[in-house]
């Protein structure tokens, strides 16, 4: 049993976090990173479900409209534009940053429009969500990704309305979704 000695044992020494007495992790965009951790969990669950389903015997491969390549390019350009905008804003040049940020937003919307068009192409070719597991997953995956991008678009619009505060976080968010898209696209191509 624990005993009380003559000198009480010292309580645990402080550990971790912060400098300058502010006590926080000197990590920019912690909030965004936390959000991205949750999103990673979401897409990881999606991907693992996809991989499991792909292994079942009734999987029929889906045709991949070449439009998807164009959409990917649009998203890549959107990220680049938004990155430029964010850097300009960080350098204090809000006026110069705006057009780049807007271009990024427009290109992102272009991606979304392209995705919807790809949906119409597939539906027109007879690949409905029902009756075709690969189809169902295609719509699910692109739908969830697209919704998150749309949310990012709303955040971007809000940042622009607030003199660019949060633009840097928006840019990271779009790069993240670009990364997710590249992964999902590779998965789609390989199945």
């Amino acid at each position, binding site marked *: 049993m624990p005993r009380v000695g003559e000198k*009480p044992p010292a309580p*645990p020494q402080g550990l971790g976090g912060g400098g300058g007495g502010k006590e926080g992790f000197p990590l920019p965009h912690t909030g965004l990173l936390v959000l991205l951790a949750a999103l990673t969990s979401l897409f990881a669950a999606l991907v693992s479900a996809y991989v499991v389903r792909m292994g079942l015997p009734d999987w029929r491969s889906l045709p991949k409209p070449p439009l998807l390549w164009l959409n990917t390019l649009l998203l890549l350009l959107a990220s680049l534009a938004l990155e430029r905008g964010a850097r300009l804003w960080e350098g204090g040049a809000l006026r110069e940053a705006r057009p780049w940020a807007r271009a990024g937003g427009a290109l992102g919307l272009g991606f979304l429009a392209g995705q919807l068009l790809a949906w119409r192409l597939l539906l027109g070719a007879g690949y409905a969500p029902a009756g075709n597991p690969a189809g169902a997953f295609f719509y699910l995956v692109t739908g969830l990704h697209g919704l998150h991008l749309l949310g990012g678009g709303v955040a971007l619009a809000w940042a622009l309305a607030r003199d660019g505060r949060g633009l840097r976080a928006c840019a990271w968010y779009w790069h993240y979704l670009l990364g997710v898209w590249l992964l999902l696209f590779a998965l789609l191509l390989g199945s």
Partner: protein
Amino acid sequence: MQRALLAATLVLMVVGAFALALLRPWWFTPLASNWGSIDGIILLSLVLTGLAYAGVNLFLAYSLARYAKGPAQYIPDDPLLERRLFWFTALGIAVLLAPGLYFYAHLVRPPQPKLTVEVLGQQWLWSYRYPGPDGKLGATDTARVSPANPFGLDPKDPAARDDVVVVGGPLRLPLGMPVQLLLRANDVIHAFYVPEFRIKMDAVPGMVTRIWLTPTRLGAFQAVCAEYCGLGHARMLGQVLVVSPQEFQAWLEAQPRAAQALGQ
């Protein structure tokens, strides 16, 4: 006054727990299969957890009775004690896990079964299929499933034609022979459970699952559905009859074949 009452209550709770375990008003059904090892592990677990529960509650009762007035002693930690408690707990865990995994290995690797019977769960009754003299269960296809043909047998498959189908049971099993149960379902997930056999397994549509046992006691038992399957879940009861091997054989040979039942 309240302190004494609380301490007494904690002690009484332990007494109650032990009383229930010793007097056993509700306890295992009498074993009717080879899976008595599970009973043994449960008893071992009851002993260890019972001692742990008694230890915790008695310690708690003592502490609150004895240490009412203070002053409290400043003891923020004791690394040696903590290490010891850690290893002590790990040992307890190992003592429970080792036999558990050992006997689980028996469950996972069945012996060569002499008999395979298919169990079909459907909302809300159990049906069974036995292989015919060829010893093989015939092929099935969901496309052929109909009220008259719940297993979806292909009437052209010779292995299926001589199978014996019993819709609604009872399930007859011969004493002393390891039997493999193949479980299927047509609609939703069910689970086949006979308390006296101890083991259970889900029947999942789109899959065939399996479990094995050796009946060790003659008698009539009840099978229940142990996976929620809709409104009739509590009514999905079946009868299981364990009979002598001779009686089983005689009964099986006297049954109409699937080919007859399907009118082919």
